[in-house]
């Protein structure tokens, strides 16, 4: 079995990132797009932690990952609030319907 090193984590992270981007691009449900964003954030976190483990050995990577997770939670709360308003106005969360510039 191949010994796992930093490159493995980087490839995994790239894979998650690409899948997240594809998810954002293909989903038309607003919440699906939010889920894609979460995937991308996760891939970034994997990178941070892997670098912290393999390259610096310092705590910085973990601290940044904490920030990312906390901000992701705040962002999800905001996004859901926006989607609620979107849904209130348009009765759907299909983002392609959101091309009207009025509340």
């Amino acid at each position, binding site marked *: 079995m191949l010994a796992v090193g*930093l490159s493995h984590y980087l490839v995994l992270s790239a894979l998650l990132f690409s899948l997240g981007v594809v998810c954002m691009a293909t989903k038309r449900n607003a919440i699906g797009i939010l889920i894609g964003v979460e995937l991308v954030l996760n891939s970034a976190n994997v990178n941070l932690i892997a670098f912290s483990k393999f390259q610096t050995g310092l705590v910085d990577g973990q601290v940044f990952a904490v920030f990312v997770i906390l901000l992701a939670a705040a962002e999800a709360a905001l996004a859901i609030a926006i989607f609620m308003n979107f849904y209130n106005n348009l009765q759907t969360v299909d983002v392609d319907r959101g091309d009207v510039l009025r509340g």
Partner: protein
Amino acid sequence: MDSVAAEQGRSLKDHMDDLAFYIFAAISVASAFGVVVSQNIVRTALFLLGTLGGVAGLYFLLDANLIAVIQLIVYAGGTLILIVFGIMLTSKSPWAEFKPPKSQIVLAAFVGLLMFIGITSLTLSGEVNWAARATKTPLATSPKVAEAGEALLTTYLVPFEVDLTAIGAAYLAKTEK
């Protein structure tokens, strides 16, 4: 030659860790793939749970216990529930499916593939050869929880406070509506 020597120096535990990496990586990638492919939004959220769990397992492997449990408690226990709430509140029927056109899917897949190849080639063999610069084996000393907590409250106190403020702002923005 080097790798052979490294192989010989590895204990059973290291092999088990490698196996665990592949298992967790498979779980997270397969779930992420499910997130992309699934048309049912509730199942998408469920697949996201799989990805989050797999990635949390990877954090455990990387000795980042604090991040792993924060991932589980904040992401899987909080954000994901919020997302499911959002799904339940915004979909008239649970099977609300909005299918994008085929051309979009193909385009997105192509862009995604391109992106993956680009990032991978960049990180592995490009100008910025991160992997080559990194230590071959994980560093023996990995930061403990106490260190992370101390860093959060000393070196990174200001960003931490700002982060909390952002959450507070999100809350305030919600209540003003």
